[in-house]
C-alpha cells in the first residue's frame, strides 16, 4: 500500500470523526468566551444525538426520505439550545457553581433521553436505526482533482464542509462584530463591560444558548453521520473531547476547529490504524489517549500556553468588586 492510499483512508475518516467535535467545540468557545464554563457540553450532545435519532425516524415515517436527517439536525440544534437554558439559568441567574451545574446537565441529559427512549419504544434501551443517514459521497468534479481530490473531496459528507465554514463564520462573529466584542469583554472583565452599558446577563444567556445549539448540532451530526441510532453509549466522551479541542485551540474558533481535526485524526487512526503500516505495530491505546495527554501538555504550557478567558467560571454579581 503506498503513501497516497494510506492518506486517502486516514484523512477522510479523520474529517468525518472531527465534524461533530468541531460543532461542539465551537459551542464551547462561544460559552467560555462569555465567561461561563460549560462542562455540560457532553449532555448537550446527548440531547442532540437523541433528538436527531427520534426526529430522523419520525420524518422517515412521514415520507420525507433523504431530507429527514437534515431536518432532524435543525431540531437537534434547537432542542440543544432549549436544554442549555437550564445551565444558563443556574449559572447566570442562580449564581450556581458552573461546574456543578454542568455535571447536573450531563446527568439530566443522559437520564432524561434514555427515559424517553424507553417510553417511546416499549422499554427498549435504544432507538431504531435510521434509514437515511448523511452519507459519505464523492464531491462531483472536485474529487477528480489529483492529490487533493482523493484526500479532501472523496468519502466526505457535506456537513463537514459546513462545519469548517461555520468555524470561520464564528471567528468573524467573535472578532469582527460588535456582538463579538461584547461577548469577549463580558468574559474578560464583566464589571468593565457592565459600566460601558453592555448587558452582561443577556450576553451570557445568548452565549450559553448558542453553545447549546452547537452542542446539539454536534451530537446530531454524530448520530446522522456515524452512529445511526441512539443508545446509552452513543455519546461517550465526545463532549469532553470537544472541550479538550476548545482548550487546545486556545479558545479560538479556528484553533478549536484545527484541534478538533487533529483529535479526529487521532481517533480515526485508532480505528483505521490497523490498515496502516508502522501504526499497526503501535498499541491503539496511545492514539486513544493522545488527545487528552496533548491537552494536559498544552495546559501545562509545554505545547504553547493556553489561558482561559479571565472571568470564566465566575458568576457576575452586579456591584461586587
Amino acid at each position: 500500500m503506498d503513501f497516497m492510499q494510506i492518506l486517502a483512508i486516514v484523512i477522510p475518516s479523520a474529517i468525518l470523526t472531527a465534524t461533530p467535535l468541531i460543532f461542539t467545540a465551537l459551542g464551547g468557545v462561544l460559552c467560555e468566551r462569555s465567561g461561563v464554563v460549560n462542562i455540560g457540553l457532553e449532555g448537550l450532545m446527548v440531547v442532540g444525538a437523541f433528538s436527531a435519532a427520534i426526529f430522523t425516524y419520525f420524518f422517515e415515517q412521514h415520507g420525507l426520505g433523504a431530507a429527514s436527517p437534515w431536518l432532524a439536525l435543525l431540531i437537534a440544534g434547537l432542542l440543544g439550545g432549549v436544554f442549555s437554558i437550564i445551565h444558563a439559568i443556574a449559572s447566570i441567574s442562580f449564581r450556581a457553581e458552573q461546574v456543578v451545574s454542568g455535571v447536573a446537565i450531563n446527568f439530566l441529559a443522559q437520564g432524561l433521553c434514555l427515559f424517553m427512549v424507553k417510553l417511546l419504544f416499549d422499554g427498549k434501551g435504544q432507538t431504531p436505526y435510521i434509514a437515511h443517514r448523511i452519507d459519505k459521497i464523492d464531491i462531483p468534479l472536485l474529487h477528480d482533482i489529483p492529490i487533493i481530490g482523493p484526500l479532501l473531496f472523496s468519502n466526505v459528507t457535506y456537513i463537514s464542509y459546513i462545519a469548517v465554514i461555520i468555524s470561520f463564520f464564528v471567528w468573524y462573529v467573535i472578532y469582527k462584530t460588535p456582538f463579538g466584542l461584547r461577548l469577549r469583554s463580558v468574559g474578560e472583565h464583566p464589571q468593565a463591560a457592565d459600566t460601558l452599558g453592555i448587558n452582561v446577563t443577556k450576553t451570557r444567556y445568548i452565549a450559553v444558548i448558542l453553545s447549546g445549539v452547537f452542542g446539539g448540532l454536534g451530537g446530531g451530526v454524530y448520530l446522522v453521520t456515524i452512529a445511526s441510532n441512539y443508545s446509552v453509549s452513543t455519546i461517550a466522551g465526545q463532549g469532553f473531547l470537544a472541550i479538550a479541542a476548545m482548550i487546545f485551540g486556545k479558545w479560538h474558533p479556528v484553533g478549536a476547529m484545527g484541534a478538533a481535526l487533529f483529535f479526529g485524526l487521532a481517533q480515526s487512526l485508532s480505528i483505521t490504524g490497523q490498515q496502516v503500516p508502522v501504526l499497526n505495530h503501535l498499541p491503539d491505546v496511545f492514539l486513544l489517549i493522545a488527545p487528552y495527554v496533548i491537552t494536559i501538555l498544552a495546559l501545562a504550557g509545554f505545547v504553547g500556553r493556553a489561558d482561559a478567558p479571565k472571568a470564566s467560571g465566575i458568576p457576575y454579581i452586579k456591584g461586587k468588586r
Partner: protein
Amino acid sequence: MTKILKNVHWFNIIVPIIAVILGLLVGAIIMLLTGYNPILAYQSILESVFLQPYYTGETIRAIIPLILTGLAVAFAFRTGLFNIGVEGQLLVGWFAAVAVSLMFSGLPKLILLPLAIIVSALAGGLWGFIPGLLKARLKVHEVIITIMMNYIALYTTNYLIKHFLYAEGEKTPNIPEAASLASTFLSNLTQGSRLHWGIIVALLAALIVWFLLWRTTKGYELRAVGYNPHASRYAGMNVKNNIVLSMVISGALAGVAGSMEGLGTYQYMMINSTFIGIGFNGIAVALLGMNTSIGVIIGAALFAILQTGSITMQSTAGVPTEIVSIIIAVIIFFIGSSYIIRWCLLRVTKGGK
C-alpha cells in the same frame, strides 16, 4: 447580603433537604406526566430496600464505593479543589488492586488483602497527584486536567486488561480468595446479596477523614487553604504542598473505592466501554453531604437506596430506572443553585424584608 446568608448556619442543613425534596418532586411530576404512578414507584423502592433482605444487602453494598468517592470529592472540596477525576482514580485503583492480588496470589490473606487496598490507594493517589501538581505549580485548573485524566485512565486500564490480564468474558481472571473482601456470612445474612466487608473500610475511611480534617493541624491547614489561600500563605502555610496533598488524599480515597469493587463486589475488573458512574455520583454525594463525613454517609445511603430500589421500581411500577438519574441531576442542580433556595427561604422566613 450574601455575607449574612453565608453565616446563617441552619441554611446549610436545610438546603440539601430542600434539594432532595425538590428532586423527588420533579421525579414524581415526570412520572405523572408520562403516565406512571409515582406513589407506587417510591413505595416499591422503600419496600424492596427495607423489607427484602437481598435488596437491603445490595443497598449497603452500593453504599460502600459511594461513601469513598463522596469522601474523595468532599476532601478536595475542603481545600477548594474540584476533583471531577474521581471516576478515573477509581478505575486505576480498581485495576491496581486486582492486578496486585493476581500477581501475588500466593501470599496469605493477612498480607495480601491490606497490600491490595494500599496499592489501590497509591494508584489513585498518583492519579490525583498529577492534577494537584499542575494546579499547585502551574496554576492549571484541576477540573479540566482531571477530566482528561479520566479518559486516560479508562483507555489505559482497558488496554492493560486486554493485553496482560485477559480472561474469558471481557474481564480479568477472578482474584484469589486471599485478596477477597467477600463474605459468605454477610451474603447468607442477606439472602445471597454481594454485601462484603468493605463497608467497614468505608466507615473507617469516613472516620479517618473526619479526624484528619477536624482534629489535626494538617487538616486545619488544608481547610484554611480552601477558605482563603492568600491568608493561609500569609500565615506561613505552604499552599502549594497542601494543594498537592489534598489531591493525593482525594485520589487515594477514590482508588480505595475502586478496590472495593474489585476485591468485594465483582472479584475481577471488566473492560469498561464507558465510565461506570460511581465517581460522578460521588460528586452528588459530597454536595448533598455538605462535604462532611456524616453527610457523605447519609448522601451515599440515599443514592444507594434510589439506585438499588429502582430495579424493583421498574418491575412493579414499570418506571424505567433512568428516573433515578433524573432525580439525582435535579438534586445536584438545586444544591448547586443553593443561592436561589437561600433567597427564597429568606423571603419566606423574614416576610419579604
